[in-house]
Every structure is written in C-alpha cells, then in structure tokens.
C-alpha cells in the first residue's frame, strides 16, 4: 500500500517499467509447441527461465502484470543466491546496487544484548547477505531475460486454466486481445502464494499459520547507521512489539513491527496508524532525528505451509507456489531461487535426453526437504520473534534478560539466518566412502576459495557437471576422463593439465577440501556435491554419474 494520492507504481525511488502486451502467434491461429512454460515473472520464475536458457532450453514466461512487484518485499539475498546469480551472469548489477552486510544486533529493553557476525572470510567472492529491493531484483533478472534469445516474456497474460496428460500441459491464457491455448512439454508454476496453477490442479498447501502479524513498512530517511540487521525486543516505546530494521539502497529503510494479538489488522494498516507507529519507532527506537517520508507498507502473517509433493506429472512448483515460510531468517526468496535452479537444470537435462526422466523424481525430496528444514528453524525463530502464548513469551523474555550478561543465553537471540540446504538424503547423493577431515560433504554446495585478485574457484564452474581434481590423477582415472567430455575438469594445484583447466591450489586450498593428491569432488550444475573420493577409480566416477543421470546417457 502507498500513501493517499499516490498510485501503486508511484515510488519515491524506483521508476516502474511498463511491459507492453505483444500479440503471441497462438492468437493468430498458430499452435507452436513450447518445451517449457513458466507461470509468473517474479524473481523465482525468471531465475528458472535464465537457468533453462543457460542449459540451452527455450521457454516462455507468462505474467498477468505489466510491470514488476508493487513493493520492496523480499530484500535479503544470501551468498548462496548471489552464487546462483553469478552462474546466470547477472551478479554484478546486484552487487553494485545492493548493500552487503555481515552483522546484526539484538536489543532488549533498549540495551544492546547481542551482536552476531555471519561467517565471512577473504576466501569468499560475495558477502553473506546483500539487501536489495525486490523491484530491482526483478528488473535486473528481467532485463537479462530480455537479452536472451531463449526466453520469451509474455506480459499482461493471465493463466486461467491448466490441464495435463501423459504428453504435455495445456494452459488457457487470457490477454487484452483474447484468450488462447498454450501447449508445452513441462510447466513450472512460479505464480506465488496464491498460485492459480496450484488451484487449477486442485492442490492445497498444508501446515500451520502462526498467530503473529507484522506490518512491513519502507521509509526514506538519511542515516549513517551501517547496513546491519537490528532486532528490538521490549522497547520502552512499543513494549509489546518485536521490531526489525534493515537498510536498503536509495536511503530506504525497512521497518517491520509486530501487531498485538487484539489489534485489528485493518485499522493497523490505515495510513494514519502506520505514520504514528513508524514515526515513534524512528524517533524512540532507532533514535533518528532527521525527516522521513513514507514509501510503502504491507501486512504480513507467518506461515509454515507446503505442498505434499512439489511435482505433479509435468508440472513442477517452484517458490511460494510450493511453500510459504516465515520472513524471519530471509528464507522465502532465497529458497525460491534454489528451487528454480534445481528444477531448471534437471528439466533441461531430461528434455535434452542427457538424463533419464527419473532425474525429476529427485526434485521433491531435495527441495521439499529444504522446506521442512526451514520450517524447523523458522518455527523456532517465529516462536521467538512472535511468542504464540504466555509460556513462550515468559521464556523468551527470560532468555533475553539472561543474555544481557551471560553468553550462554545469547544464541537464543541469534536470527538463524538462511543457510544452504545439504541434499544428504537425496537419491542423487553418494555417501562418503573415504574419510575427509574437511570440505563440503556430499549433497552440500561447494565452498569458494580465493585463487587470486578478483579470482575465485567458483568462477570456473561450467554449465554442466564439474570435477574438482586435486593434484596428479591416477593414470586409470586420467584415461577414464577421456570418456566424459561433458565433464568440466578443474585441475587444482598443477601448472598445466592435459585433463582440464589447470588452476592454482596451495596447501590451504587442499586442506579446506580435506584433499590429498588424487582426490576428486564431483559437482552438479547447481554447485551441489554428488560424491567425493580420496582416490577415485574410473568405476567410481561412472557409477556416480549413472546415479544422477540414469541409463539415458549416451
């Protein structure tokens, strides 16, 4: 919502683009068969489109809007997400515009009781978190998609019906110039919390809705306070409300505050109520003295809801259409982007006949597993941020009071920010046979290492599968690599290599991966690890690739 007299697209800092309707060939009697259709041009849908394009698959993206999102909404991009954006070739704009951060503070009764620092080192290309308004996130992705010959964006095109059979999916699309049927091999539903595709298939989300409601409000305010996450509990100004504050680009500040259990949400989102409460927080809680302007606000309720299965035949659900998670810990968008990439590369490999269709069976266990892990963490965060009962409130305040002087109680105040999920139980992951003292375990994403100035290990990953090879390979493995031309070999710690790309690798890099000369890590297109070995044989490598790709491989 915006202040009276301002249209939904009338922002203090963002120029909303207008995306015209372009008449598609279907409206003129043609019946093209699309390989993949994506419903929803939000950050998750367009990320899926760019991932498909990266693997050489054409797709069409449908959205009922003529512009990007109405407000800043999801503002925190995790390092894992930035590494996804790097693989899509769009990271630079996000880093240039976004505000990176590593720290946060927790206040109880207006006293700072805890500071947290997210894991970070000079081995990383990206900061652990970057704040950027969702309109920019969408704009940067959409502009990249517009440059791609493989992605067709169809604006002002609302999906009103979905049917599927064994061979494909048919959509009914409503446009300013009439309705048409669109046929595709596979459909990605990225149409958000109120997914039309989900309803059309008669599916429902299951789980819990928490009692706590929050107002999320953006203001423009000049302040030198650094980019950190601040959480305020039991402030003198608003003792009953938990308050969160984040800085965004363009002098925009995000203020989230909890509504009391007896407050009428409709009254709480009226402009005067927002101005009163936000003004009080800026003056009394943030201790800011400058002028401020109200930009945008919305109401938010915490949920832990998910589909029982993220794939139904030829329809895969990605992002909020599959799961709704509480905002605490910034998991909604970041997990949505991971869904998009997971579904994207698997679909591409199946459509190209490079993997058996069974590869798609791993989508639900991997990404629903990630959601359930989020629920376990976010449930705790939510009960802490928004105690659902007298008992939880008493315990929360007791933990915060003890945390004033006792470090053992401080972890209660930790925001449990998003961390990438490890696909340890996935059918695509091979458990360790050899003992590794360090390094990402099977199913986890690769860790980055600095190789030089503006030069990092992850920069060298290919679009397909990669093999990190540490030092000299056994002659048998070296010979076997000739049978896998599709595998990108990153040969670490050698001057030059006949097997792949030679890269520097010192003792510290070997140690970080627990590697010895001859060790290898097999990596999926989404940077997650399939398997690792101290001394792999040709059969080890072949078995691991067969586990992932099945018997469809040429």
């Amino acid at each position, binding site marked *: 919502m915006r202040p009276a007299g301002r249209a939904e697209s009338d922002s203090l800092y963002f120029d909303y683009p207008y995306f015209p309707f372009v008449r598609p060939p279907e409206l003129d009697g043609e019946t093209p068969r699309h390989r993949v259709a994506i419903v929803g041009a939000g950050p998750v849908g367009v990320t899926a489109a760019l991932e498909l394009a990266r693997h050489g698959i054409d797709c069409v993206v449908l959205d009922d809007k003529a512009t990007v999102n109405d407000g800043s909404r999801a503002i925190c991009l995790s390092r894992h997400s930035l590494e996804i954006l790097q693989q899509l070739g769009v990271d630079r704009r996000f880093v240039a515009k976004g505000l990176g951060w590593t720290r946060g503070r927790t206040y*109880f009764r207006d006293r700072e009781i805890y500071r947290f620092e997210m894991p970070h080192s000079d081995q990383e290309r990206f900061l652990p978190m970057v704040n950027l308004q969702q309109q920019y996130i969408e704009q940067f992705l959409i502009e990249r998609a517009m440059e791609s010959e493989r992605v067709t964006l169809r604006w002002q095109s609302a999906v009103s019906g979905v049917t599927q059979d064994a061979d494909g999916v048919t959509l009914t699309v409503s446009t300013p110039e009439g309705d048409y049927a669109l046929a595709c091999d596979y459909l990605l539903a990225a149409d958000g919390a109120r997914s039309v595709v989900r309803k059309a298939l008669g599916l429902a989300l299951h789980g819990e809705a928490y009692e706590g409601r929050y107002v999320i409000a953006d203001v423009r305010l000049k302040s030198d306070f650094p980019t950190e996450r601040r959480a305020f509990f039991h402030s003198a100004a608003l003792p009953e409300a938990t308050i969160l504050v984040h800085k965004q680009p363009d002098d925009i500040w995000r203020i989230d505050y909890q509504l009391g259990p007896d407050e009428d949400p409709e009254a709480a989102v009226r402009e005067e109520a927002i101005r009163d409460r936000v003004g009080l927080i800026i003056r009394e809680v943030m201790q800011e003295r400058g002028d401020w302007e109200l930009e945008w606000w919305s109401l938010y309720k915490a949920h832990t809801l998910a589909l029982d299965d993220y794939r139904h035949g030829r329809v895969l659900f990605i992002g909020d259409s599959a799961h709704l998670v509480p905002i605490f810990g910034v998991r909604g968008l970041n997990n949505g982007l991971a869904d998009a990439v997971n579904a994207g590369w698997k679909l591409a490999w199946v459509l190209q006949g490079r993997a058996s269709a069974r590869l798609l069976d791993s989508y639900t266990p991997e990404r629903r597993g990630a959601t359930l892990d989020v629920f376990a963490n976010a449930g705790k965060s939510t*009960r802490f941020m928004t105690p659902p009962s*007298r*008992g*939880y409130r008493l*315990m929360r305040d007791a933990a915060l009071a003890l945390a*004033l002087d006792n470090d*053992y109680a401080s*972890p*209660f105040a930790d925001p449990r920010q998003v961390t990438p999920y490890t696909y340890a139980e996935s059918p695509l992951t091979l458990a360790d046979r050899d003992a590794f003292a360090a390094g990402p375990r099977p199913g986890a994403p690769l860790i980055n290492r600095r190789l030089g100035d503006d030069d990092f290990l992850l920069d060298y990953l290919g679009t397909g599968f990669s093999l990190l090879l540490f030092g000299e390979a056994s002659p048998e493995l070296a010979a076997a690599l000739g049978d896998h031309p599709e595998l990108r070999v990153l040969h670490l710690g050698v001057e030059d290599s006949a097997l792949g790309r030679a890269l520097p690798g010192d003792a510290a890099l070997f140690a970080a991966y627990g590697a010895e000369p001859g060790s290898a890590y097999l990596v999926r297109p989404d940077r997650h690890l399939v398997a690792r070995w101290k001394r792999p044989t040709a059969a080890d490598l072949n078995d691991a690739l067969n586990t992932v790709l099945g018997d469809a491989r040429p």
Partner: protein
Amino acid sequence: MTTSTLPFNDLERVYELLAEALDDLPEAQETPFLAQLALALAHRIPDLSEVEAAIREARRASEDAGK
C-alpha cells in the same frame, strides 16, 4: 564457571518444554511452579557454589530487566 554444561541444542529444548509446561498451568501457578523447578534442579547439582552462581545470574538479569 562449570566444567560441563548442557549443550545449547538441549538448552533450547528445555526452553520449549518449559514454555509448554507454563502454558498448561493457570497463570497464578507460574511462580510456585518456577520456584519448585528451581529446587528440583538444584537438587541435581552436587556443588552449592554452582547453584549460588545461578541464583546471582538470574537475580542480576531481573534487576537489569527492571531498570
């Protein structure tokens, strides 16, 4: 300081167990319940100085919070 303490994951579990136990009680029984619990827990700690330190920590937190 104690030489061995409850791991944080277990402390977190205690937090949840207590929250649920408190919710099951009438509000008037909260204070007696917590005092009884303190005695029952103290019985399980073989070192008086540890219990005294815990009393000081809780007391200090109450005084800080009351400021």
